[in-house]
């Protein structure tokens, strides 16, 4: 039973206290669902895409402070980005945008990256592989 949050940056705490883009998108263009309750983290990421650009992103997360903060940050980061640009967002970039995460919490940023990829993949699937703006869509899972 250890206290950990002295390790969190102010930015993590700020996103944890005031998470951006919480909720679901009715009628989304893509949904990513990653993690499982056994591990203690579940992330659901919803995206709305217009002309190859992510115009809205929302999330629901069951997890620790870092999981909530990374969910909040990744939804902020993807808004206004093309799918290609969004796919280039790495877990490290999410962690850096939060002024870093404790080593033990880096898996939360991985989860955020996976949730984003999974949502874009879902979007591509829904569009039958032709929805991406440029169509190069190299998606790896």
């Amino acid at each position, binding site marked *: 039973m250890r206290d950990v949050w002295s390790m969190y940056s102010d930015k993590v705490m700020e996103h*944890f206290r005031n998470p951006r883009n919480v909720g679901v998108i009715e009628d989304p263009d893509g949904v990513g669902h990653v993690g499982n309750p056994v591990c203690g983290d579940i992330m659901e990421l919803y995206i709305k895409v217009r002309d190859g650009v992510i115009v809205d992103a929302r999330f629901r997360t069951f997890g620790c402070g870092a999981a909530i903060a990374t969910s909040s940050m990744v939804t902020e980061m993807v808004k206004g980005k093309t799918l290609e640009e969004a796919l280039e967002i790495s877990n490290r970039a999410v962690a850096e945008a939060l002024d870093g995460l404790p080593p033990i919490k880096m898996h939360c940023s991985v989860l955020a990256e996976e949730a984003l990829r999974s949502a874009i993949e879902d979007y591509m699937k829904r569009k039958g592989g032709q929805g991406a703006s440029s169509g190069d869509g190299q998606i790896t899972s």
Partner: protein
Amino acid sequence: MPERKIYMDYAATTPVRPEVVEAMLPYFTERYGNPSSIHSFGQDARVAVEEARAKVASLIGARPEEIVFTSGGTESDNFAIKGVAYALRGKGDHIVTSSVEHHAVLETCKSLENEGFKVTYLPVDRYGTVDPEDVRKAITERTILVSVMHANNEVGTVQPIEEISKIAHERGTYFHTDAVQTVGHIKVDVEELGVDLLSTSAHKLYGPKGVGALYIRKGTRIAPFVHGGEQERGRRAGTENVPGIVGFGRAAELARAEYEDEARRLSELRDKLIEGLRERIDYIHLNGHPTRRLPGNVHVTVEFVEGESMLLNLDIEGIAASTGSACSSGSLEPSHVLLAMGLSHELAHGSLRFTMGRWSTEEDVERVLEVLPEVVARLRAMSPLYNVRNAYP
């Protein structure tokens, strides 16, 4: 911003009482002698250590010569288990303990397993209680020690120590209990409990950190733990932590006079908090035994939310609590205690512990009852699990 801070983590550690600090202070400055020295400075410190020993002994119904001062609960557990294992190595190689012990016991047992000892980790029921009959069945001719904690540090369940120690003795085996959570809080009498070894720690009963004791019943075979000088009858060498020991003695003296009233008061606060949480939050469950539990311990699982995120929110509101969620441990594994009690990983992640003590008040309980339901509602609103449950009841 919180109006004032509320500490509900007394099981982790307690503040040192002002009376204890006052008793300790002279032993840092004017009365700094080494108790092993023959001159007056040394003898002054020696008297202080022996007076403290008598006070600690008196709190648990022991004789002063049966008390060995250590650096704390963890050392006492290590000392008891390794000390007996090494002393009785020729007689047997089997230890019986429970799956809900503190890591100080579990890791010590694991390290002995690496040295060739065999250890049985007994299961517990859903309240975290060890069945004495399981102890009876686990003991073999090779068993040299049974170690079962007096009360669990996480869920607060008090074990049937009298019954278990009786069984251990019937089978000719020593019995050790980790009483770190109980000494100074509920009645602990080494004769009534029937223990041969008992671990305790000062900082859990308003004494200083870095000092504890191991009770060793007269005649118990045990190997020395720290080698060096003749301190502590050659069992635990090293110049005594005189101020710490004096503080422990004073804390023990105060606890002896006050614990009964305090236990009654804390039990009322505890039950009020449990009731209040049940009224205000749905899908919440009490962990640990409903009645056989530590006076100040409230341990709950809140479904669909994760423990650390609850703790963070409580901390923002000035309330300090604790969790068994993996997310707040270094290991990413949730509490072994909760898993042993049969909780799923999912439920273990949503656990929250409030432990109250001397400075806890009814207002503190009311504040938690005001804040936690809001925190839970906010986190559930962003939890994908809550809606899943609502969609498929």
